[in-house]
């Protein structure tokens, strides 16, 4: 998978840290204001940068060049340690001082998400992105600059965190910015939903109706289990109220359930709970554990070999799917799932999760499989991992 950061040599003074990288033809089309564009020039292309300066462009990028040319009339970004990281269409942030270059938006990626905040009001046992209580409002300011540089034909854009509702009025502002700049893009916003128990908060995001799916985790059919998993008393009730408040206001809702030892005991009942209490949700996602963040700290509390929960998971997902609620499985490799569950197993949410083990070598199901987090050692490895021969897959 392609990293999001690399180092670059920057010559000249950039007028702004955020730039849309475009090849010459697209840059000249004028869809993006020139002063926000770094013109991507492949080696051997000879362009008079004085003309580009006169046209108002911000910079040029020559990924593999070693330095500025004597006649360059614009700041130059060059000498990328990894030239594959940036491609035309991407939006980058360039740190002048350190030379760090980060891709904030990648054209053609499987999924693009905006990271809104590191703060959170829950503290989930398996959080892959442990929250930090730091003032990170600069992120929102940067995102408000980034959003207009995103391709207008992007089908879906995610918001992640942290808990985005902690941004208060800045969350509706970000939604408005997306609606203005990306009118055809669907938003997928991860939130624990607790703050939507406050009807004023639920009212404040009314512009999200019709373009947004709120992805809200729910881990049980009873308060004690859910509250334990998210480590916050009262969270289950608050999230339920939040879901109802959003639904009453016409919002689309996705429910997310992470399968592990603390949620498994209620998984079947959870499916029936959704059917009885929230049959209006548009999607339910069941997800395998990601061995990251707090999940590693709590490994012994959380680990169940997926091969042992496969049959129960098949029951739970079909319980909902057969009742007309679209249901998916993410992050569980096909070889550890019973075949009955395969039709609902999705390949992956994002590019970087499709990592395969040496054991997957030659597996005929690989094109349909999400793979697994191979780099995390035997403690996270299912005993069910085994490659399928071609004949088996054909059956």
């Amino acid at each position: 998978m392609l990293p999001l950061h690399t180092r670059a040599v920057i010559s000249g003074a950039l007028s702004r840290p955020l730039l849309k990288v475009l090849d010459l033809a697209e840059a000249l089309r004028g869809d993006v204001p020139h002063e926000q564009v770094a013109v991507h020039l492949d080696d051997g292309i000879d362009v008079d940068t004085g003309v580009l300066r006169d046209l108002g462009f911000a910079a040029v990028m020559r990924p593999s060049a070693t330095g500025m040319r004597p006649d360059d009339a614009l700041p130059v970004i060059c000498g990328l340690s990894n030239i594959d990281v940036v491609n035309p269409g991407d939006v980058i942030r360039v740190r002048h001082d350190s030379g760090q270059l980060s891709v904030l938006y990648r054209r053609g990626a499987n999924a693009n998400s905006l990271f809104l905040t590191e703060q959170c009001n829950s503290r989930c046992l398996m959080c892959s992105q442990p929250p930090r209580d730091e003032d990170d409002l600069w992120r929102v300011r940067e995102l408000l600059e980034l959003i207009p540089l995103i391709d207008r034909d992007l089908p879906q854009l995610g918001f992640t965190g942290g808990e985005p509702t902690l941004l208060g009025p800045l969350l509706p502002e970000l939604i408005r910015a997306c609606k203005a700049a990306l009118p055809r893009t669907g938003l997928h916003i991860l939130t624990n939903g607790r703050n939507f128990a406050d009807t004023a908060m639920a009212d404040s995001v009314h512009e999200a109706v019709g373009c947004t799916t709120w992805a809200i985790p729910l881990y049980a059919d009873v308060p004690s289990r859910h509250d334990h998993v998210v480590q916050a008393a009262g969270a289950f009730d608050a999230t339920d109220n939040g879901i109802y408040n959003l639904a009453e206001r016409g919002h689309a809702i996705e429910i997310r359930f992470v399968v592990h030892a603390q949620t498994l005991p209620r998984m079947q009942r959870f499916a029936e709970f959704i059917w009885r209490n929230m049959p209006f949700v548009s999607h339910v996602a069941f997800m395998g554990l990601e061995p990251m963040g707090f999940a590693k700290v709590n490994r012994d509390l959380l680990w169940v070999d997926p091969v042992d929960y496969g049959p129960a998971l098949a029951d739970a997902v079909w319980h909902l799917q057969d009742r007309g609620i679209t249901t998916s499985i993410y992050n569980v490799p096909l070889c550890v799932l019973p075949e009955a569950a395969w039709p609902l197993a999705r390949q992956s949410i994002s590019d970087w999760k499709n990592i395969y083990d040496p054991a997957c070598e030659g597996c005929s199901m690989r094109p349909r499989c999400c793979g697994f987090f191979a780099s995390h050692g035997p403690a996270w490895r299912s005993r069910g991992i085994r490659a399928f021969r071609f004949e088996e897959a054909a059956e």
Partner: protein
Amino acid sequence: MAGRLPFAPLADFRPKEPGYQPMPFRFARIPGVDGKVLVTSEVGEFEFLDETDFRAFASGTLSPATDAYADLQGKHFLVEGDPSTPLRMVTAKYRTRKSFLKGGPALHVFVVTLRCDHSCRYCQVSRQTADQARFDMSAETAAAAIDLMFQTPSPSLTVEFQGGEPLLAFPRIRQIVEAIEERNRVDGRAITYSMTSTLHQADGEVLEFLRRHDFQLSTSLDGPETLHDANRPRPGRASHRRTLEGIGRVRAALGERSLSALTTLTRESLKHPEAIVDEYVRLGFPSVFLRPLSPFGFAAKAAQRIGYGMEEFLPFYARALAYILELNRKGVAIQEAYTGFLLSHILTPFPTGYVDLRSPTGAGLGARVYNYDGGVYASDEGRMLAEMGDHSLRLGTVHDSHADLMQSEGMQLLLATGVAEALPGCSDCAFLPYCGADPVFNMAREGDPVGHRPTNAHCVKHTGLFRILFRYLAEADPHVMRTFTSWVTQRPVQRLPDAEAA
């Protein structure tokens, strides 16, 4: 830093002592389900509890650390602490279950004629006088009835034609449909047309008309030829053969899905559950509706000859259902329609469009009948009662207003006796959330709309049916559950069969 804080254990999020409040619940012990108690909630969720858990739950001592506690809490049988959130969900579920009340009467039955070319042994009201215009609905009555229908607020309306044999008055049907279409150009309701007919009169012109207006048709098919013809004598006989011809013509003209069939069960029928089901399968029907004889009209007088008690119907039903489930297990998709309604009430959070098993009663609230003579009734049975001399469910005439009809003495009687939650016996019956009040039936059988539950045929029937169904639900055989699920979702269940062995 945050990572270093310890994580609190599950027990910290549970109440230390049992301190829960039970929500309203009802319970029953189901014959054949040993050692378990069925509890049901006001909004129709259910749980089978062990006797000991049940007693602990009821006495307020069930431990928060037990599975039973969580199972009951997840279904809102008990609440702890601040009950406002579970109450909000219960309220939403209650509103959803009773949402059929919202739009007022949605089913409007037009009895266009009483004339019929059959003289069925169990027939309730029809007249075998194929040429007496005085049993037909007049154009003026029809126009007033249409106006009344449009006075109801329901955004979707079902217009059903009944008789007699409604097709004997086909010109009137055409006039009504055309007038409704004209009116609806401005009114914009979602309108469905349906008709119950022998189909014997369904010729090319009629079929073309029915096709153009997308009619849902139902016809009577009592089973194999001998049984059907014994039940339905007509001059010249051959009712079964002619019905089959009609079915063929309708399917060719309107498509397979436009036609369903209804079975009326006589005493003779009760001996042949398998043969009746087989006939439906043979003719390609996805569903069979096994209806016991109703206590109305001529049927009451003929009761000695062809009638039977519910204690005879229930074993028949149990046998038929077992046979249907066996067929489904073998891959033959056939369902029993009434079971489908009952299971929808039990297994889903939604109401059905079926008006005959509701609380508050569907009579007058969900349905209304415009009789050929201009009388307006709360239900089809209500006008049959009138034919038998009891006019208490005649709400008025087509020249009254919707508001007048809804405030009529007949409606007040229905509202006072048509809410099962408030009826003696029903109010503490475990099956209440899935059952309904039927004051009209009670009047026909007992001369009293409340009814005496222990001997009430509606109750004996439903207690029996629910016991049979809950026994299946307690057993939870995967094949049976899959079949049941497909009936309540009205879609094939996709779950691969192999997985259930796992």
